[in-house]
Each structure stands twice: as structure tokens, then as C-alpha cells.
């Protein structure tokens, strides 16, 4: 039987040439990094939980990643997959069986060795409805998933422990995103005995295999992580201690950073101070800018007149002045012309999208039978800057004759309206959607542009459903061979190109992340705007002032 034995994508291609055998490449450690030192990071909100099965916000996401590990991870600062707790993996040619060889000698923070049973336990736990995990749905392709989520089985039938260091996954369909799913926090490995000891409070007493171990949590004040001296990855982490100070208003945190009391602003730079910071060369030098896996867009309900007419949707695409909207948000983003953000595989650099062209938009509206425009509604979330952005869109639409009244509502109301087929003609997605869960082009299709997402309570707010594209998407996702990932990305580019012809959205901008740090922080810039370890890759950063 032909099998792929792979570690990284590049190594896998090599492996194929060498007859499917390969040792994994060791991860590289920054030679300039000095060990030791402690840093302080501030956050406004209390940390919700550090349980990898539960945590699902951008604050605890990277904290959990540093305490726990999964079978897979990404090269620091990039979206390139690589094995982590797994040493290597094999994918059967039909793309439905994944077998992982685990790294030996990896220890949990309680001293016990991690084995394949722990991997299985962790996945059974996350999919068990009693855990109430927001991530249970990511494991839908594993055999037996339905029985577990329905409460009919306690264990996933498709996950088999072959020996303490080998685990096999059987899927119901070929799933090219499966390696990403094995890198997502929800699949991170937890020790059963600790979960059972703390029960529902495991999230406050996390025990993993990660670079840092949990040291202290003073509710409402601080969370402290300390270096895991037994971390399997030699040379990491660099820091001895990371302290998260909680409950700090971003504006106060900025003042403290300017005085050198803290090292990293966990929240965004306060909008009111953004221009001041960027105008000061000394402060600007400490701001790292990076892309995010985010696109902000306007949805048009393709089942509602007049947006059921593709010409109307194309006209709206040409009517919106994206550059002006980017200026409105202090240039904290880049104009978008397609659903995928630039840092996502499958993003088409050559694609030009719809130009901003008022005359052509008017002509298209006239062709569609609306020479004088029409009345409609634009829903938007009611927190800054979204109402301002909605107003800018409203003015742009007015210039081509479309009179849109703004419905500025609480987040939950807008999401509810979008999930109702007759709920909202147009929605500005800001503050709600969409940031990818993992760096794969399919994550921008399934929930928000596919027929499966166009259901009551779903996230496909344009109710766009193209069966042809659904079939093409399924075809692309059945290409599981990492060596063919470029081909797969091209297929996804074509899918998004076709979507833009149908124009159910106006892609408006891709948000950029700006992380501000103290002068003593060292490490490559991309560690501070890591697309996966959002916002900071704590394992790899270091301080320059240790002896």
C-alpha cells in the first residue's frame, strides 16, 4: 500500500522522492536568543479559561498554546504546518486514515509521560457533549463523531490506540484540513487524572505538556506561567516567566508601557492614541504590524430582491470606496478584493476584483432595472468603528442611488438577523466575522459561503448557495496529500474567483494587527503578530537584557 510519510510539506515532497521514509526535521531555535528573564503582558479582560477544550477567544488562544501541545503545530510566526507532539504521520492514499507516531519521553507538567491514550482521551473529552466544548464541531470528519455528540457513545470509534506511541484516525471522508484540526487548541492533549481531579475547574488548574507550566492565578489580577524545565523541545522556551496582568484598561496599559513598566500590550493600541503612537518614531519602532486571517465584508442577501440579481450585487461592489473606509480605521487594514485574506494559502495575488467605479455601478443598476436605485437596510454592530464604517458605506451607496437605512444593533441581534433568511438585506460584518480558526482556505467557505452555512442560525448571511461550488470544495478538500497542497490552493483560488463573479459579498478590508512591545523584547517580528499563536508566540520570544 502506498503511504505518505511526512513531516513538513517540504520534507514530505522529499520523502516521496526518497521512497516514503523520512526523519522529522528538528525545529530551529533563534541563535541570538538568551535564556532567562521575565516579561509582563497586560489585558483588559479576565482570562476566561485555560482549558483547551473550552477556551475560544483571542486572549486565551495563545496562552493555551503555550501550556499545551497538539499532534501538529505551525512553524513560529507562519501558517506552515509541522508535527509537534507527533514525530511523523502517515496518510493512507484514500485520504481517510491518518496514523501518527508520537514523540517519546514527552512529559506532562505533573511528571507523567504523555502517550497515545492521552490523545484519545482528549478527543473523546472535547467531543463529549458534557464538556460543552465550542470546538466539538471541528472533529466532524472522525468516524463515530455523531454518536459521541448525540450522547450515544462515550468514545470516538474512529480513533484507535495502536501502541503507546501510535494512534490511528479513521475519517468518514477524505479531509485535507485534518492536520490543521490536529493543530487547533481543541485537540490539544490533556492528562485524564488532572481533568478528573479538578472537574469543571480544570480550566483554572491547567496541566499540559507545553513550554510553560501554570504557576499562579489570582482572580481578576494576574496569571503567571513559568518555564517548563522538562519541555521536550530543547532550548525552548527562552523566558523563565510570563506574567499576565489582568483588568488593565488599554489606555492605562499604554501609559505603563511608555514608562517601561510592562513589556507587551496584549490588547490593541487604543484607537484614540493610535495616530499619536505612530507619529512618534521612537514608539512606532516598537510597534510590529502583521496580517491577520481576517476579512471584513458586506453581505447581500441573495434570496431577497433586489439582491437576487447578480448585476445589483456587482454594482454594490463597484460603489463602495474601500480606501476611504481603511482611512476611517486609521489605516489599520488593507483594502480587500476577495474573500481570502492575503496571508491565507489560496489567496490570488493576480486577482483584481471590482474597481471603485460609480459610473459603472450606476450603469449596472440601470441594466438591472433600478436606474433610480432602491431602498434597503444595512445592519451593523453598534460598537466603534462599525457604525462609522456603516455610515461610509451608506454614503457610497447613496452616490449610486441606493438608499440604505442603518440598523445599528448589538452583536447578538445582528448575528440573529443574519441567520434568519428574511432577516437582513445587507450586513456589515465588522466586529463579528470572519477570522479563520485555522490557516486553510476552506475555513472561509464552509461556514460562511457554502450551502451548509445557509441555514437558520448559520453564518452564511448572504444565503449564497452554489451546489457546483460545494462539489468543487469537496473535491479540493479530498486532496489530502500535502505534496499536492499547491494544486489544492489553486482549486480554492478558482472557487473564490467564481464566488466573486456571483458577488454575494463586498470584501472591504483585511484587518492588520499592531502589537506594541517594550525595547527589551527580542525575537523576529513575526513572533509578535503570529497568525496562529495570536497575538504572541510566547515559546519563542525572549528578552535582550538578561546576562
Amino acid at each position, binding site marked *: 500500500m502506498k503511504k505518505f510519510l511526512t513531516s513538513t510539506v517540504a520534507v514530505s515532497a522529499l520523502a516521496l522522492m526518497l521512497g516514503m521514509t523520512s526523519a522529522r526535521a528538528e525545529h530551529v531555535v533563534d541563535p541570538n536568543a538568551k535564556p532567562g528573564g521575565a516579561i509582563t503582558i497586560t489585558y483588559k479582560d*479576565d482570562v476566561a479559561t485555560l482549558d483547551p477544550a473550552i477556551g475560544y477567544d483571542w486572549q486565551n488562544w495563545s496562552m493555551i498554546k503555550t501550556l499545551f501541545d497538539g499532534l501538529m503545530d505551525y512553524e513560529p510566526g507562519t501558517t506552515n504546518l509541522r508535527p509537534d507532539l507527533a514525530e511523523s504521520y502517515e496518510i493512507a492514499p484514500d485520504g481517510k486514515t491518518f496514523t501518527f507516531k508520537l514523540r517519546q519521553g514527552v512529559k506532562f507538567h505533573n511528571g507523567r509521560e504523555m502517550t497515545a491514550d492521552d490523545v484519545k482521551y482528549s478527543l473523546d473529552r472535547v467531543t463529549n457533549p458534557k464538556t460543552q466544548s465550542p470546538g466539538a464541531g471541528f472533529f466532524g470528519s472522525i468516524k463515530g463523531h455523531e454518536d459521541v455528540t448525540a450522547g450515544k457513545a462515550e468514545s470516538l470509534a474512529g480513533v484507535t490506540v495502536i501502541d503507546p506511541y501510535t494512534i490511528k484516525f479513521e475519517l468518514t471522508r477524505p479531509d485535507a484540513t485534518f492536520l490543521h484540526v490536529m493543530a487547533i487548541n481543541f485537540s490539544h492533549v490533556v492528562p485524564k487524572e488532572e481533568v478528573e481531579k479538578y472537574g469543571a*475547574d480544570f480550566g483554572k488548574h491547567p496541566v499540559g505538556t507545553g513550554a510553560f507550566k501554570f504557576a499562579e492565578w489570582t482572580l481578576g489580577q494576574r496569571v503567571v506561567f513559568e518555564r517548563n524545565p522538562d519541555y521536550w523541545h530543547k532550548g525552548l522556551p527562552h523566558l523563565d516567566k510570563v506574567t499576565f*496582568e489582568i483588568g488593565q484598561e488599554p489606555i492605562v496599559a499604554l501609559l505603563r508601557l511608555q514608562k517601561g513598566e510592562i513589556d507587551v500590550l496584549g490588547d490593541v493600541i487604543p484607537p484614540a492614541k493610535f495616530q499619536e503612537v505612530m507619529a512618534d518614531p521612537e514608539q512606532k519602532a516598537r510597534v510590529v504590524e502583521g496580517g491577520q486571517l481576517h476579512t471584513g465584508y458586506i453581505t447581500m442577501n441573495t434570496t431577497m430582491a433586489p439582491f437576487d440579481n447578480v448585476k445589483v450585487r456587482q454594482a454594490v461592489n463597484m460603489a463602495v470606496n474601500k480606501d476611504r473606509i481603511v482611512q476611517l480605521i486609521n489605516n489599520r487594514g488593507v483594502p480587500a478584493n476577495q474573500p481570502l485574506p492575503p496571508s491565507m494559502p489560496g489567496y490570488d495575488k493576480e486577482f483584481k476584483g471590482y474597481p471603485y467605479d460609480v459610473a459603472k455601478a450606476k450603469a449596472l443598476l440601470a441594466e438591472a432595472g433600478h436606474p433610480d436605485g432602491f431602498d434597503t437596510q444595512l445592519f451593523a454592530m453598534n460598537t466603534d468603528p462599525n457604525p462609522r464604517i456603516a455610515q461610509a458605506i451608506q454614503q457610497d451607496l447613496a452616490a449610486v442611488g441606493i438608499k440604505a437605512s442603518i440598523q445599528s444593533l448589538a452583536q447578538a441581534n445582528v448575528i440573529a438577523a443574519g441567520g434568519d433568511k428574511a432577516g437582513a438585506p445587507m450586513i456589515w460584518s465588522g466586529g463579528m466575522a470572519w477570522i479563520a480558526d485555522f490557516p486553510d482556505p476552506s475555513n472561509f467557505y464552509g461556514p460562511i459561503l457554502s450551502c451548509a452555512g445557509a441555514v437558520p442560525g448559520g453564518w452564511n448571511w448572504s444565503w449564497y448557495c452554489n451546489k457546483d461550488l460545494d462539489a468543487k470544495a469537496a473535491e479540493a478538500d479530498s486532496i489530502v496529500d500535502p505534496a499536492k497542497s499547491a494544486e489544492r490552493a489553486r482549486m480554492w483560488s478558482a472557487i473564490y474567483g467564481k464566488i466573486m463573479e456571483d458577488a454575494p459579498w463586498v470584501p472591504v478590508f483585511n484587518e492588520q494587527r499592531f502589537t506594541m512591545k517594550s525595547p527589551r523584547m527580542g525575537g523576529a517580528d513575526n513572533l509578535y503578530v503570529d497568525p496562529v499563536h495570536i497575538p504572541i508566540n510566547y515559546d519563542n520570544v525572549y528578552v535582550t537584557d538578561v546576562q
Partner: protein
Amino acid sequence: MIAYLGRRVIQSVLILLGVSLITFALLYLLPADPVRQIAGRSATPETVENIRRQLGLDQPFFIQYWHYLISLLSGDLGRSYIQRSEVTELIVSRLPASLLLMVGAILCELAIGLTMGLLAAVRRGTATDQTLMVASFVGVSAPQFVVGLLLLYVFAVQLGWFPIGGYGTWRHLVLPSLTMGILGAGWYARMMRSSMIDVLRQDYMRTARAKGLARGAIIFRHALPNAILPVIAMIGIDIGIFMGGIVVVESVFGWPGIGQLAWQAIQRVDIPIIMGVTLVSAFAIVLGNLLADTVAPFIDPRIKLR
């Protein structure tokens, strides 16, 4: 006295029940579906319904409310939807910080307010009086968010006398107490002034002056103790104002109290925490009022309990 207290306690319990019912109903009517929030955006409809059943949120309103009340009687405020911790534990861990801030704020407002009120009453009609009254007006009307940031900027960032927010030492306590105290000080200055003027008008004051007592003795030994009593009795009622203020002040200063907890919970629609903090605040306010009313006749014999 006992009958009065009994009546008041029953009234208080009814008020708390009313507060719990109204808050529960308001949160129940919120468009945000807590189950969808817990289940996340990738959840299947079955998972959503499963969680709804587990949390008992598929039950009719009054059954849900009844279950909440029953747990409440045993001191169980439920588990947070977002943090997944016991709400009671979250509140108990943060109460000391809020109580400390309250003590600091009361000290500030009494020290500033009573001094201002006393001075204004004694210098009644002069420029001092007018300046103090304008200042008290500003104190009452200035938004606490602005006052807090201003104090932080001047005394912590520029002068460096106090830390920039946070919790731990007495130096951390000064600025947030002052921010809270400035609002109350305005009220106390006004009350103290009118109370003092009232007392100074009394016949026995004239008698004291006629006897040739020194001005200081008249004010501090005879007028002040009488004028201050009705003002002190207000502290119990103050608690309501505090509970509103701590939400803002704790957020500005990163003070780990229940106000900050409430503010974060509101932003994340974490209903059990909102419910718990509201009930604890309502309890504090009702208790404060009860104490104020019960103590009042001991301080001022003119008040009778009926």
C-alpha cells in the same frame, strides 16, 4: 422596635425577590442566546440543543427562575457561561477589593465633603462659600471615568507619586478612592453645609455666643456634633451610589473588585455573573438602607421608628 425590624426585614426580602425576578426576566429576554455563545460558531444544531438541555435553558421561564431561586437559597449562584467557574467563588474572591475601595472612598468623601461643607457654612455668603459650592457641583457632575483618567495622568504618570493603576499597597488605593470620593464629597459638602447652617440658626447657638464662648468652641463643640449626625446617617444610603461607581472606577484603575467583574460580564453577556453581581449589590444596598434606618434613631433622638 422588634416589630419594626421584622417588618423591614420582610420588606427587604421582598425587594430582593423583586430585583431577582426583574433581572432574571430582563436577561431572559436578551436577544443573545447564551447557548449559541457557549457552543461556538462551529457547533451543530444537535450540540446546541444538547447544551441547552444540560443547562436547563429549554425549560419555561418560571421553572428556570424557580431552579435559580432554589440554588440561591443554598448560596449557589450557578456557573459562569464564559469562565466556567462558580459565580459565588468569583464574587467572593473579588469582594475584599471592592470593600476596601468602599472604605477608602468613604474616608475620602467624608474628609473632603465634611470639611468643605463646614467651611462653606461658617463662611456662608462669602466668596469661599461660593467657590466651595461650585467645586462641590463640579465634583457631583464630573464623570468618574474622566476624573479617574485625569488623576492617573497627573499624579501617577506625570508626578509619579502613585502607581499607574493596579492593586496591592495603600498607594494603589489612594487614586481610586479619591475618584470615588470626589463624587460623594460633593454631596456631603452640600448636606453638611445646610445641616450646619440649620444648627447655627438654633437658639442655643445664640445662647452660646451670648455666654461669650469662643467661635471655635461654638462650632466644634456645640454645632458640629449636632450637624454631623444626619449627614453620617446617609452613609448607608450611599452604598447604592458606590455600587454604580465601582463599575467605572474599578475598570479605569484595574481594581480587581466586583464592579470590574460586572463590567466584563456585561460585555461578554455572561448572564450568571451579571445576575450574581446584581443580587449581591442589591443585597448590599438593602442592607445599607436597613442599617441606616435602624441606627438613625440612636444618632438622632428626634427620629422614631414606627
